[in-house]
């Protein structure tokens, strides 16, 4: 079941010169219970904003306090131009959704829902990649721990690996952490 999306009480900054587009956008934000501030000055990282809309037609590097991979909140680009350079700029900022100008009211809510979802998915993917990268990085440790168990207990590779995994599960830590622990303490505690 898809829950009804809610933006109630969120704070948005619209980085855009005041215009029909910002008036239309501000009206929609108000309907959705979002407090929106319109301004044409750089955003700081510590402003406690929940959503950013940015003018991709005239936006410049430095308008946003982050680069795409570290973007901490959903970003919606406002675009009138079809110039590839401007589309690329929006993508480089990490835009999660696009609203074309002139801003038609029916496009705002869908763009917000999509941006929030895409942003959350992006964050989740980034977290998962970070976890996997750490596991890949620590793989030699697991190998070393298995070798150490095999040498100490005279067991086969599979048995040693199983013992390591069992302990990881019992202690509810990762295999890599178990391996690291094993390599710095007497091995008879394991298995």
């Amino acid at each position, binding site marked *: *079941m*898809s*829950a*009804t999306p*809610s*933006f*109630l009480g969120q704070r948005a900054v619209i980085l855009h010169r005041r215009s029909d587009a910002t008036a*239309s956008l501000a*009206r*929609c934000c*108000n*309907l*959705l*219970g979002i407090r929106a501030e319109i301004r044409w000055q750089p955003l700081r990282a510590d402003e406690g904003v929940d959503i950013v809309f940015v003018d991709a037609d005239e936006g410049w590097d430095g308008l946003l306090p982050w680069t795409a991979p570290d973007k901490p909140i959903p970003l919606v680009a406002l675009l009138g131009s079809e110039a590839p350079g401007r589309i690329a700029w929006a993508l480089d900022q990490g835009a999660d959704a696009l609203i074309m100008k002139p801003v*038609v*009211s*029916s496009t705002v*809510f869908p763009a917000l829902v999509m941006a929030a979802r895409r942003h959350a998915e992006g964050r989740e993917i980034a977290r998962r990649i970070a976890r996997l990268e750490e596991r890949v990085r620590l793989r030699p440790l697991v190998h070393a721990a298995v070798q150490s168990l095999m040498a100490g207990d005279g067991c086969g590779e599979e048995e040693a690996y199983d013992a390591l995994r069992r302990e990881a599960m019992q202690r509810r830590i990762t295999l890599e952490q178990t391996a690291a622990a094993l390599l710095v303490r007497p091995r008879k505690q394991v298995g």
Partner: protein
Amino acid sequence: MKTLRLGILFSTYGDYGALARDCRDGAMTAIEDLRGAASIAIEPIPGDPAGSSERYIELARRMVQQDGCRHVIGTVTSQARKDVIPVIEKHDALLWYVCPYEGFEANPSVIYAGACPNQHLLPLFEYMLPTFGRRVYLAGANYVWGWEMNRLAREIVTKADGEIVGERCLPIAETEVERLVAEVAARRPDFILSNMIGPSSHAFLRAMSELGRRDPAFRPDRCPVVSCDLTECELPELGNGVADGQLAAASYFDSLDTPLNRVLKARVAARFGPARRVSSYFATSYAATRLCVEAVSRCGTDDPIEVRSALAGIDMPSALGSLRIDPATNHADLPFLLGRIAGDDFVILQSRPQIAADPYLTRSRPTLQARSAPSQLRVVS
């Protein structure tokens, strides 16, 4: 300005025909009543797109481009409304929409006089869940109205610790309802939400009536079918007593006993004969048309921007109660009524005063609570 040209755009054939005829008749009756009474002359420009998307767009375009209409009262389905809106926007006109719908829209170029879910579905479930139980079956038409109403109902019921015991959507004109009814009979819900429409809904209500005769557990007093779109205008078509005891939510019923409704009913009886019942479609269209004319008269121009801002200051008495358009959402504040079908009429079981529309459910979250927790609906009187 001398003459207000009002586009009347309804498709009176097909599955939604009965609803659209009531919408059209409501608007036309209002225009007749205002002839001579209003400070401006009104010329209706009718158009019937016969259910075709292309014809909707073509007729809307002709109304605003050639016939000089800056206000169009029209469309029943959300699809038709979405088809017409770009034409309206492009020519800076105003569309007056008079039907209940699934919400999640607040276009500046549209005045929404019909109810959205916080004005129909949410209060309906606030009544149904404690009264009949929390095991609910969802039946809908395969169309955005059915899908979105079912989605919302599921959200409400789940949050109230209830259970959706089954859900089935049929093609819009489908009248083969055997599987649906067999599933209802097997799952034994406490009540059924039906978002079906026209012939499909009629076939379902007939089959439920049959099922109720075979098994008293499915009689309407124990397992009712409720809807947010069934009105008086479909009851004659349904046949005598088939839907008796079933329930519907609306912002108006013919049986409302108020001075203004007595006037409206007398007028309708004089024009259409004593058997004709007034539905919420008729009454809303009638009231919205009068509101449009009132706003234009006050402005002295039909300029949609001026009319929209004039609307903010108007609180017009109508058969639906005091009709006011919220300038933030362009939606009407509407009362909630729950009716039980008895012959050609609805017996009003429950009523709530005017509720401000919340088309994006920003304030009235569907957080219906388990059992005794208090209501979180925002009721504005």
